[in-house]
Each structure stands twice: as structure tokens, then as C-alpha cells.
């Protein structure tokens, strides 16, 4: 599989992600979410713009990687849908199964998102390890 891709269920949409270690998984979660929001325009995200990236510190301690991943994605959804900021990348300071400490790099959003995400769900969410990659599928309520 690709490092990240999007898919649909009958009513909702999702992302399929994998990465080397937890930091790779979280970085690809950002890429996949941007693909979900902006389709082909997602390729332009992260290219140099006038506005310098804003560092938004994010730290979360959870009961497992699924819990950390849902809260991490929820933060990115919040930044876009409430604060109008696209997360273009992350700098991970520390990531484990139950913890992430990272800077989310955001820029003001000048693209029109193609969908509104109501929430990040735990539906059948399981972070697994395959061939040295952390893998997950996350469903979003839209």
C-alpha cells in the first residue's frame, strides 16, 4: 500500500496510513487528512507561501495508540475547521504508543475544504505493525 490513502464506507470516509515508527505514522496521518480535505489540491499544501508556518505545540497522553491517534487527528480537524489553519507537517519531539509531543506546523488556510468532518471515530480502529510499518485505518464522520 501507499504510505497514505483515502477511502469511503457507505456513509463515511476514512484514511489508511502507515509509517516507520509512530512519528512516521503521525506524519502520514497529516498527509492523508489533507488529501481527504483537499483532493488533488493537497499536493500544493506545504509549498512555500508568504505566511511563515506557525508552530502549534501539541502533547497528549493516552491509553493506547488508537487513543493518541484519534486525539491527534481531532486537533488537526479543529485547527482547520475552527481556526482556519492547515497543518502542513509536524515535528515530533517524542512519540510512543501512549504519548505524543510534537509541534504542528500550520499556515492560514486559503483553500476551500471539500468536506466537513464532524468527528474522528474509533470505529474498528486498531494500530497494527506489518513488515516494520505501523498501520491504521481511521473512519471520520462526515
Amino acid at each position, binding site marked *: 500500500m501507499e504510505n497514505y490513502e*483515502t*477511502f*469511503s*464506507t*457507505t*456513509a*463515511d*470516509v476514512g484514511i489508511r496510513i502507515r509509517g516507520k515508527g509512530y512519528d512516521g505514522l503521525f506524519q502520514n496521518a497529516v498527509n492523508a487528512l489533507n488529501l481527504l480535505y483537499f*483532493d488533488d489540491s493537497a499536493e500544493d499544501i506545504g509549498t512555500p507561501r508568504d505566511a511563515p508556518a506557525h508552530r502549534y505545540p501539541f502533547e497528549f497522553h493516552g*491509553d493506547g495508540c*488508537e*487513543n493518541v491517534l484519534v*486525539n491527534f487527528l*481531532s486537533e488537526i480537524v*479543529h485547527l482547520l*475547521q*475552527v481556526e482556519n489553519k492547515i497543518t502542513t507537517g509536524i515535528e515530533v519531539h517524542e512519540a510512543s504508543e501512549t504519548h505524543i509531543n510534537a509541534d504542528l506546523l500550520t499556515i492560514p488556510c486559503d483553500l476551500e*475544504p*471539500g*468536506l*466537513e468532518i*464532524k*468527528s*474522528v*471515530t*474509533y*470505529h*474498528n*480502529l486498531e494500530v497494527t505493525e506489518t513488515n516494520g510499518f505501523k498501520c491504521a485505518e481511521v*473512519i471520520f*464522520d*462526515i
Partner: protein
Amino acid sequence: MELGYFNKLSPYRWVLKKRETMKVDAEIFATEDILKTAIDDGSVQQVVNVASLPGIVSRSFAMPDIHYGYGFSIGGAAAFPAETGIVLPGGVGYDINCGVRLLSTTIPAGEAEKYREGIGASILRDIPTGLTNATNYKLNPKEFLRVLKKGAEEIVTNFAGNREDLAFIESSGQLEFDEPEIISARAIERGRTQVGTLGGGNHFIEIQLVDEIYDRGAADVYGLVKGNIAIMIHTGSRGFGHQVATDFIERIRKKGLDKLSKSGITDQQLIFAEIQSKEGRHYLQALNAASNFAWANRHLLMEDIIAIFEHYFKSSAKSLGIGLVYDQAHNIAKFETHVVNGKEEKLLVHRKGATRAFPPGHADVPVEYRGVGQPVLIPGSMGTATYVLKGTRKAMEISFGTSAHGAGRRLSRHKAIKFAQEINVRNRLKDRNILVFSNSKRGLKEEIPEAYKDIDDVIEVTEGSGISEKVARLVPLVVIKG
């Protein structure tokens, strides 16, 4: 799961006897084709998962618009004892009190024709749609708190509208909420800028024509006259409800994972709390706040639309005969009294993509409708008919007074977009005399009628199984999509 596992009680009622982890039987209201589709898309397994939850009463139900959701199937309903049972946010969904509101008018469709284009364009221009925080109503914190406490009543008291309308809203548009301290700052932040907004996805405003009357007596009582136009609003609690659900799923999961695991369920989206626990009580309080937000939201949208009609027709709402027929939730959990094994029991009934369908004489039906039963509003997909039905005694006996809520998706959004790739949805509907207004081309393609089940099949099952009876059919003249 196979069709052969089901007992066919009648042409439209299928029962799966309890097996493996199930605590009760599951019952699906469906044609054979609808049931086969639901088996294939995994939603029947979701009904089975719900049947495996502790304390579930009677059966795990699914309506004929069943389709695959997260955790609970969409079109699902389940009840738990009020004192000893559980509450699960996944049995309501993130869009708490998503619902529909229907307005009748005395405007003949012919008279509305010359304003149709203008009204549609004005609604799209004046009412915030899609992913927006640009509400026309910037509430201060005190006003917002009053919305959470009083719901639609706050709107008629301090913004616009008539107090008499409150009687025609499920639960009078207000559920008890008196613990504002449990609501997160983030939920308030998301909610304050979204009161009076439509949202995106499958939310819509439609101007409809009352096209067919099946039950003249009930239609007269509801104010629906063949040839006149009606107005329908479909939206929910916007970012406030989404955040409330997100917050409380997090709070409940801290203690809930072990309990879920003991039930033999692996899907964490079905996390639950005991109703009487602190987490359960707080979630129900927050659910009520979000429900109140949604009723206030639909009320404000209604008043905005009425103002547009008054502008075009240069006439008052009263002269135009605009009246609220009913406002109905289809994502909610509420305490209700039902008869179980011959005895009345207070239950917490969860409906996710399912509507209440209470019968004639029920105390929770508006006094004016008590002779015929509660209106049941079942919109179809974009460009297809909406049906108004009425609640039945049989629904109280066999489905906890629950009915369908819509056509139910058939195609995923990706498949719908692929299907509609070469189709100009707007022109296609215009050829059928339906004007479509939307800022989202992608949204129109996602909501193409072929993405949904045939509403007529859903209505056939709904009426054929006895859980509601047809009153009128409405067809769209103008569609405004979020």
C-alpha cells in the same frame, strides 16, 4: 452472516435469533433485497453488535433505511432500562439531534413559480452553508448558555418566532440541561459561531410541492394541501454537538474499555457507561444541551427562511399561511415509557438515523395531532420525494415507536462521485424542474440520487410493516445543499 439465519415474520420483518454474544434477538424491517444489501455492507453485523450490549431490552432494531455507519448501524434503535441500563454515545452519533423540520404554507405552487429562482438564490446567499463559522447570529456567552438550556424557547423569547410553534417540536424543543460546567470550552467555541447555520454533507433546505395526499384526514390536521408548497430543513447541532460527542466518548472510554471487552465487542465506537454513573449522567446532560442547540438552530433557520419568503411575496408569514408542521430528531437518546412483557417500563431509547413515530392518543404527541398520531418525516435523496407519515400503535408494540428517517445511502461518497463524473447534476435536476443551489460541486455529486436507496422501497417497508402510515408525498422544487 447469511439470509438463511433470519426468520421471516412477515414480508417486511426479519428476526435473527440471539446467537453467540447476542443478549437479545435482532429485528430488521426490510425487503429481502434491502436485507441482503445490509448483510453485504456489514450493517447487519452492527445490529448484532448492539444486540450484544448488556441490558438491551427486547430486540436490537434496524429500520428499512439501514446502512453501515460507525459503531451503531444507521437506521438502528435500541433501548435500555432507565435505572439499571447503559447509554452509548455511538447509539446517537456525533451529529446529536440531527433532524428535519417541515413547514406548510397556503401558497399554491403556481404562485411561487416566479419567485422560485430568487428564493433559492437568497437562501444560499443569506443562510451560511457548508464548512462555515460565519453565523448571522453572534451570540454572547450568556445568550449561548441560554440556547443550551432552553433550546427553541430561547429563540422565540429573544430572537424571532412564535411561542405557539414550540408545541410542534419534538419534546417542545427543549430537554433538561442545568450543568453547564460539564461542557468543554472547545465545544462552546465551536458552537457559538454556528448557531443558525446549515452545515454540509447531506444537510439541506428544500422548497417542496405537496404532490399527493394518501390520508386526507391526517393531511388536513397537519395543514398539508395538495398543490401548495412546503419547506423542509435538515440539519443538526453543528460543531457543538460534534464536539460534545467527541468529548464524552473520551471521558467514557477511560472506564469503559474493560466493560466493552467483557461484552465480547471489539468496536470501541460502542463504548458505553451506566446511565446512573457520573459519566453516563453527564453525557446525557450534554446530549440534552446539544439537542437544545439543534432545535434552536433549526428554529433560527426557519425564521430566516420565512423572512426571505415574506420579502419576495411582500406578505406576512401569517398571510402566506406558513406554519410549523413538525420538527423531529433522528439522532437522539431519550427517556420514554414503553410496555415490555405486559408491564410499563421507563427506557432510554437510542435512535441513530431513526425517528420517533408515536401513535394517536400518546401524551407526547402535540394536542392538535393527538387524534391522528405524530407526523413522521422521511425525506428522500436530493431530487426525490419526501414522505410524511403518521405514527401507529403497532410501532409502539413492535419497534419502541420507531420508524425510518430517510432513503439511506447505497453508494459510498467515492463511488457516488465516480458515478456522477460525467453528469452535470444541476442541469439534470433542472430538466426535472428542480432548481439546485449549492456552493459545492463535489457535494452535489456525493448526494446524487443514485447514491441512495429508492425512497419508495423504504416507504413500502415502513408502511407494510405497520410502523408508520403514509399521509402525503412531497416533491422538491428547489434544493439548497450545504
